[in-house]
């Protein structure tokens, strides 16, 4: 299967949930979907054995440009399909995809602790990289984060 055929197939698989698409590069396909549809879209790709989830990128574009995004990058050969989910600052929530893809657990934990995105039903909600005593509500990769809040006296 050529890369273009792969992308074509992915586009068809994701069609029911697609809100808009873009092709930033020949080998890439960006699909914007709703957070609620994430589970179904991932299941569709997985069910057709289309590639593997290579990473979940969190993005903070700042309040003017539309807030947070979660990018789910799938790779099949040379083709890269990105599921793009926009999230509001107040209570950003995505469903866990670990039910379909067990390997997503680490990425979801990273997304949760670094961007403050609530991942519903993720099998292990513990912190992955940040220390246990990291203050709640401080999400280091958000743009408004500049330093650790001063510690409170006990």
């Amino acid at each position: 299967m050529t890369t273009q055929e792969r992308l074509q197939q992915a586009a068809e698989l994701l069609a029911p949930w697609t809100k808009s698409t873009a092709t930033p590069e020949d080998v890439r396909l960006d699909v914007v979907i709703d957070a609620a549809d994430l589970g179904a879209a991932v299941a569709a790709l997985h069910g057709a054995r289309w590639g593997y989830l290579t990473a979940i990128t969190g993005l903070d574009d700042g309040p003017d440009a539309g807030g947070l995004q979660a990018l789910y990058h799938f790779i099949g050969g040379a083709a890269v399909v990105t599921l793009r989910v926009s999230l509001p600052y107040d209570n950003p929530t995505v469903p866990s995809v670990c039910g379909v893809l067990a390997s997503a657990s680490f990425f979801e934990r990273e997304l949760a602790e670094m961007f403050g995105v609530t991942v519903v039903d993720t099998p292990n909600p513990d912190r992955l990289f940040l220390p246990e005593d990291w203050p709640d509500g401080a999400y280091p990769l958000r743009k408004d984060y500049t330093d650790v809040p001063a510690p409170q006296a006990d």
Partner: protein
Amino acid sequence: MTQPIEKIETPKGERFIIPIGPQHPALKEPGHFEFTVDGETVKDATVRLGYVHRGIEKATESRNYIQNLYLLERICGICSHTHAMTYSLGVEKLAGVEAPPRAQAIRVIVAELERIHSHMLWLGVAAHEAGFDTLFMYSWRDRETVMDLLELLSGNRVNYSANVLGGVKFDITPEQAGDVLKGLDFLEGRNRHYLDVVSNDALLLGRIRGVGVMTQADAERLGAIGPTARASGVALDVRIDAPYIAYKDFQPALITETAGDLEARFKVRVREIEESIRLIRLLLEHLPEGELVARMPRRIPAGEAISRVEAPRGEAFYFIKSNGTDTPARVKVRTPTIFNMATVLSLAKGLQLADMPMILVGIDPCFSCNDRMVTVREAERAETWTWNELREHGIKVYQR
């Protein structure tokens, strides 16, 4: 042991946990694994990462593109070239610039030398974990050859600093090429010997054959990558699936094994060294003429780029978002180890405690790759110390 004593006592039925790391001779790297054992059999495993978070992803957002090249090269001490190259490829994509053919070839040569260096390092470490120190000493002695070659080319043994945005920093002269070829001849001979050892040494096979078997289905389900996946028969190699730079013209062969056990992981890596040697020879023979650097704009046009490179441990994935200034809006780094880490935890169950260090090392974990985001400071002592204050404190503590 930091736990209070009453917790350590384990009446019947309670869990007996063997901690490995962050300070443990098996793992001279800061990860913390906990293995719940029943006698010698491992029942459960968990991992805790992040002991040396450095905040690199956040740090990239306050540095310009050129500064970031040097920062990202320092993510990992072993696959430093990989990170710099993946980042350069991404930025070049955003700028619409392609490195000249000679630069591409030199990038690949350094990348393959780095792969040899990384795999030989791994061979030594894995042998040491198995208690085979002689193989460890020999493979690290021979690894000096490839380190010397890298030093010959770049002037550095670890952070080669080969990449600049738009090309490479140094050329390979015909004399240097001759020296590299000579070094490769030596390495090839030694490598054949190591392949013989890992395929035929009875006692070593007793420790690695049939241990930690990961089937192809498991490897795909758990998201194994790189040599770990290839040892289970998964045909995954970015150099072949999505060829980049000079790999388009100089294709490496796909190396896979089907057994999926530790022996297969040994063999895949040793055979990959062989393949890398072949590739470097080919490239040195057909080194294209021309410029070393293409001109890069200072401000990178807005956009998002994804770049993928086959690091010695598997696919390295970069997502770079530019907002049109001279600093990136976001650099996402996904290193191969984090991908493979999940396989360790699931493989561990049911095996012997004695196998744990080897299983752990079997994926060639790289903790500096894993931990890269945030500076960790104890909450109750969050003031920042200057160098002099730190020194005074140190003197005070050790004076008594």
